[in-house]
């Protein structure tokens, strides 16, 4: 038990510290690297909570794909970040408002748990009891039965967003030569080669 507690506080402390470093680091690439560290430790917290599937999906999706693209973009950007930082103070009221809303919501949730014990009962019990099946199977059963419409709808939204991004950035360029592999493979000797008999002193 004590090992678990030590692990929890270790992961939690590193998550919070690297979260702070994400906004405090001067170099944007360091910020992204700290963000990755935060993801990683959050995955560790998931493992401690017994949610191994979520932990690994977090690593695969966020660390393995999203953060790579993030890092990719941040490295390629040529922005003077010191200059950008100058105007950061004007966003302070908006940031403070978002933070305040989050804080109030958290207080409401935890306050309800502490104040009214009947609130805790209204939280749905995990449908297939977690002890009987692996948590991959439990998640699958819940997602594809009870929440299947919500699940499919979120998939559709992501698809539309992806198509939108492609439509916005796609431009058909006519001034570049593109390789068409079908044409190349489909070339026959008869289409391109002609054997000419050249007689001496006459040329073609």
């Amino acid at each position: 038990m004590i090992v678990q507690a030590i692990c929890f506080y270790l992961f939690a402390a590193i998550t919070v510290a690297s979260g702070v470093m994400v906004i405090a680091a001067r170099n944007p690439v360091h910020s992204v690297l700290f963000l990755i560290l935060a993801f990683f430790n959050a995955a560790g917290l998931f493992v401690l909570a017994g949610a191994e599937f979520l932990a690994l999906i977090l690593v695969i999706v966020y660390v393995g794909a999203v953060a790579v693209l993030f890092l990719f973009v941040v490295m390629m950007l040529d922005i003077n970040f010191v200059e950008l930082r100058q105007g950061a103070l004007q966003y302070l009221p908006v940031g403070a408002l978002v933070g305040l809303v989050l804080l109030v919501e958290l207080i409401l949730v935890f306050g309800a748990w502490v104040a009214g014990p009947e609130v805790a009962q209204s939280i749905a019990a995990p449908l297939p009891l977690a002890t009987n099946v692996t948590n991959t199977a439990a998640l699958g059963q819940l997602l594809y039965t009870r929440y299947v419409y919500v699940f499919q709808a979120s998939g559709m939204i992501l698809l539309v967003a992806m198509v939108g991004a492609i439509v916005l950035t796609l431009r058909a360029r006519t001034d570049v030569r593109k390789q068409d592999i079908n044409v190349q493979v489909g070339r026959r000797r008869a289409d391109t080669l002609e054997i000419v008999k050249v007689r001496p002193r006459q040329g073609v």
Partner: protein
Amino acid sequence: MADFWQGYALPVVITVAEIVAIIVPLLVAIAYLTYAERKVLAWAQLRKGPNVVGPFGLLQPIADGAKLLFKETVIPSGANRVVFLAAPILTFSLSLMAWAVIPFDKGVVLANINVGILYLFAISSLGVYGIVMAGWSSNSKYAFLGALRSAAQMVSYEVSMGFVIVTVLLCAGSLNLTAIVEAQRTIWYAIPLLPMFVVFFISVLAETNRSPFDLPEGESELVAGFFVEYSAMSFALFYLGEYGSMILMSAMTSILFLGGWLAPFNLEPFTGLAAHLWAGFWFALKVALVLFCFLWVRATVPRFRYDQLMRLGWKVFLPFSLFWLVLTAGVLVTTGWLPK
């Protein structure tokens, strides 16, 4: 005190001993894979390969290691020191970390976790960080270009690798590596899923940045790509990390498609209890076979052009593996072969 010994100290000691028992043979295998690569390439090119140090040149990897160990580590003056040094360490340790879940026989595994295949996939997708960090922190154009190529390449091929893995999972009905191997008792998945096996092998070549997809290194245009600024031991760690992840990916291929430790035929000396004696042998043999294919490809296939690489990943492999995934699911459902 006895409680502490039983509860904490003993498991820790046993686990450390198990880790050492996996890592030491692995490091020897990595060293001799570099030797094997040089020999195989030499045979393919009608040369002799390393044959001076020791009998048949067998001590060559040790000599190379000693040479790299005694050289000076040079850090470029414009480099970002911490990231620069962290990158090779990350690459190397990632290639060792994944071995925690690889089963060598039924029950012979360091951590038999339920989501073993996801763990392997996660670790292999982290490999890109070592390269990207190295390329960025070196503060050099060549290294940076190599890193960018590698990031795009590894993310692209991960997608089709993911679909191949999902197809295997559909057939096996579990994310546990031991269960996946046990599910291949009737037939190895390389046979019914042959096209996916080919797609997986090619994606693995791209994922490990091996030729013909070794554009991140691309020595003819980028000098040495992302590790152009590295020297001595920091270079050696990249080098060993690459070979380590080659062995890891071969192990993954043999677990997913070639039946892991299962014997290829159910004949007398390989059945019953004796099967456990042979398990390690069959597993090593399959891994070695896949590794030979890695080297064989390097000796014969020319490097891809970058746009061809992206085309192959997104326009050929992705639709194809998606199609096979749907087809496999359809066949499994209609015939009722879907594992319970």
